[in-house]
């Protein structure tokens, strides 16, 4: 939780707390080690990269980038998955079969391969990453929401809504959807971690965020060739990714316990 809180804090107040301009290059100060190894100065807490840019500042800006990309990607894939899941689960029959076979097909291909293919078709940029991550991610939502809908569909209150004469749209959005919101929140939180990793992977491969923007995956890639004598260049972005994902997953687990209606309502 505190990791996530810190993450959100840096995202929101990023520009205010960065010690240096993350884009300002200074070749005189290139490849400075972090402060505890540095004899020269403790000015750059986590050292500088090959261009003399401050790593800590770039990490903070990277957090913003990853957050914006992830949030926007989630805004694409969550509603899409939820919509397909609701339709598939509620109507069943042929619609359900078509949607579910499509998700099977999609799942049989590794998401990252699909993503790489799409990026190479659309050309690498921030927008492409958002679209690609969004489109590859909706499958999980559709499947899980569908399962939930199936169990709620047979509940008495849904049957009663039909007896009352509610339209299908009304039943789906007014009776079933509010009951799957909990799972949705948990799913989104857990998925956040996955999206961060995919975004970082794409950036690492040079298919995502383009230099000179600050992004964790990109920083990893830039540090790769200096790893033997400037370990800090790639280690710190790696640690940042690790903790961001870990924090999101743990928050997801915590939310699952807190929001579980069985613990709360019965």
């Amino acid at each position: 939780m505190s990791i996530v809180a810190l993450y959100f804090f840096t995202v929101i107040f990023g520009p205010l707390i960065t010690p240096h301009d993350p884009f300002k290059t200074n070749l005189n100060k290139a490849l400075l080690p972090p402060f505890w190894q540095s004899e020269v100065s403790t000015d750059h807490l986590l050292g500088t990269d090959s261009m003399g840019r401050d790593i800590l500042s770039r990490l903070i800006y990277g957090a913003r980038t990853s957050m914006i990309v992830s949030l926007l990607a989630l805004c694409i894939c969550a509603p899409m998955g939820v919509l397909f899941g609701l339709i598939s689960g509620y109507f069943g029959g042929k619609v359900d079969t078509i949607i579910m076979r499509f998700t099977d097909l999609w799942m049989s291909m590794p998401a990252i391969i699909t993503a790489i293919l799409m990026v190479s078709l659309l050309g690498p940029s921030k927008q492409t990453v958002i679209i690609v991550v969004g489109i590859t991610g909706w499958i999980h939502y559709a499947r899980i929401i569908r399962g939930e809908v199936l169990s709620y569909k047979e509940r008495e209150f849904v049957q009663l809504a039909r007896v009352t004469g509610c339209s299908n749209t009304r039943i789906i959005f007014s009776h079933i959807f509010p009951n799957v919101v909990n799972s949705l929140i948990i799913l989104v939180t857990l998925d956040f971690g996955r999206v961060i990793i995919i975004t970082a992977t794409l950036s690492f491969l040079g298919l995502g965020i383009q230099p000179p923007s600050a992004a964790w995956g990109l920083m990893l890639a830039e540090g790769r060739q200096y790893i033997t004598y400037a370990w800090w260049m790639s280690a710190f972005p790696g640690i940042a990714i690790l903790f961001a994902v870990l924090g999101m997953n743990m928050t997801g687990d915590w939310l699952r316990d807190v929001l579980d209606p069985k613990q709360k309502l019965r």
Partner: protein
Amino acid sequence: MQNLDDLIAVRNLKKHYLLTKGFVFSKIAGYVKAVDDISFSISSGRTLGLVGESGCGKSTTARLLLGLESPTSGKVYFEGKNISTRKGPELIKFRKNIQAVFQDPFRSLNPRKKIRQIIAEPLWVHKTLPKKKISTRVCALLETVGLSASHADLYPHEFSGGQRQRIAIARALALNPKAIILDEPVSALDVSIQAQILNLLIDLQNQFHLAYLIISHDLAVIEHVSDHIGVMYLGKLVEMAPRDKIYSNPLHPYTRALLDSVPVADPTMIKDVGLEDEVPSPLNPPTGCRFHPRCGFRDNECSRVAPELVDVGAEHYVACHLS
């Protein structure tokens, strides 16, 4: 049988579920005859009770009347008009007339909605009341079922089982229906609460002239509220009669066995109920009379010819060769 002018008249109603085998080229593996050729009527202000073991088709009958399932064949008349073929807006409009209360009050109320929203929903959907009056109507309904208006802004999980069932009843009453289908309305409740809810139902019936179809496996419940009683076995009605006739003069061996199976508060009494085995599978029902494998009085004819439901006088119908 009875005439079609009754509020609800059901004629030769059948619901067969198709079972298929195989994945791509599926074959018909058989039919589950959940409801097989039953007929009955309910008039305004009266109650028909349906009893039977689990799996005998009671609840399917209720779902057919509510239009949640469409019948394989047969007709349901409501005020003389066939309603079993209605679809779309016509069906939605018709639904005002028949409402339902289901068994489990913990599952029949949407846990995410306030009581006010739950009870008012039928009114929103059918737009029978101007928006301003809905709130007063909800309060009036709550008071009708013995709750107070202050309960309107609570969530279902804040109520006990009996209170929830009252809320479910209030919701069913919201549209001033002419009939209510009660599917095991009290079997999920404590015995002390059961009587309260049943008495409430009887009061409401007298007040609003409602017709009830009450479904239960509990003979005491059925006896308490019903005017007529139908006994179902494996999708068929085996006996139907006014309440007192069923209890004083049961003619079908299955009815007798059911009545004998009611426990008596006498620990020294040992009963011989005379029912062996389980109910046979409705997928492969016995030939002839469906009850014959378990019947103590069977003869050769029973296993060959299915008995018809015949009138033995004074509105008493029975499907048995021996009576």
